[in-house]
């Protein structure tokens, strides 16, 4: 089992180390296309190796708490001011890395199987919407939103987010339209 996962875990650990060293500080594009996905995937993989304790499952009824946490944390760390605050405060940098791994990736993996179809659809819609919203903000705000990030890099990150959001939405709609998905209303 581990060799397959190590393909995800190893880059995730490298991304966490690079993130701790501030390697993504000057590029929104790298942060959005490599850092955040790698950290989230690392958390997702860790959840498969270390399942959540039962006490956590009790306060994660229907996966709602975990999915809400994941969505809001992801949104928080896409806000430019929060990303800049990380550059000033070392504790915030640690909080960002840990929360993207465990608050988003891990929480998503342990909550997804518990969630019903409706909650999953709502989460996917919100995730796609969030990517497109931030993508549009990065694209169309005339000034640079993060310190040390060039406007061309910000626009590129905006395009990546918009394209990812639209791709996510299209993929979701395909599943939504498929009869198999709509029949399985129990979330299985």
């Amino acid at each position, binding site marked *: 089992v581990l060799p397959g996962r190590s393909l995800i875990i190893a880059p995730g650990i490298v991304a966490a180390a690079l993130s701790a060293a501030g390697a993504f500080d000057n590029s929104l594009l790298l942060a959005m296309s490599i850092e955040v996905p790698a950290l989230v995937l690392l958390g997702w993989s860790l959840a498969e190796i270390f399942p959540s304790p039962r006490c956590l499952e009790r306060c994660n009824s229907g996966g709602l708490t975990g999915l809400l946490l994941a969505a*809001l*944390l992801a*949104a928080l760390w896409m*806000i430019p*001011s929060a990303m800049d605050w990380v550059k000033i405060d070392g504790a915030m940098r640690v909080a960002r890395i840990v929360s993207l791994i465990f608050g988003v990736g891990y929480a998503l993996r342990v909550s997804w199987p518990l969630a019903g179809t409706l909650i999953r659809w709502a989460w996917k819609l919100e995730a796609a919407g969030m990517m497109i919203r931030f993508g549009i903000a990065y694209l169309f705000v005339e000034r640079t939103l993060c*310190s040390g990030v060039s406007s061309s890099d910000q626009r590129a990150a905006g395009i990546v987010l918009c394209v990812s959001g639209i791709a996510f939405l299209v993929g979701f709609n395909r599943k939504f339209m498929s009869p198999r998905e709509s029949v399985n209303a129990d979330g299985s």
Partner: protein
Amino acid sequence: VALAMGGSIWKATAGFRALALDDVRQIEFAGRQAPLPRATLTADDGRHFDIRQLAGRVAIVEFFYTRCPTVCSTLGSVLATVQREYPDAIAAGRLQLLSISFDLAHDDSVAVAAYRRRFGSPAGWLTAIPDGPGSLRALQRTFGFLIQDTGDITVAHSSKLYLISPHGVIVGAFDADESRELSAAVHGLLRPVGMQGV
């Protein structure tokens, strides 16, 4: 979870009104005054002082580095304009201008003093360097200003002028093109009687 995370997002965007940290801090300073941090500096005359000693007079603080090829000169020009607008307050010690270099590796007392001389009279205008990274970090956290090494000789950094009230709290942050608003705010703070310099 919703309340805690929603509160964090609310704070990070100053109530969904801004996305960039500079703007968020600007809104925060206008609404909720932030006291000056404990941070010691070395002035261009070699004197050590705590930035909280600015309390008792109106002050304008800016952050710069002497090798800056762009915005620092603009901020310095704004300070020079304010200096010319309020000669009486400067002479009475009721208005203090303070330029703080954040380039601990390259700037020293001599360099920052030479930088100030580019803009004319030294009256009421002090240049200083933080006494080490600890003081610099304390200033960064309170003022919310960023320093970002861009890889070449330039350094991306926040370009605000911070207004300090006689109570030693930051009451506003202004862009270089907001000199008129800054001057009006200084005028408003200088107007009350009984604020003699320390």
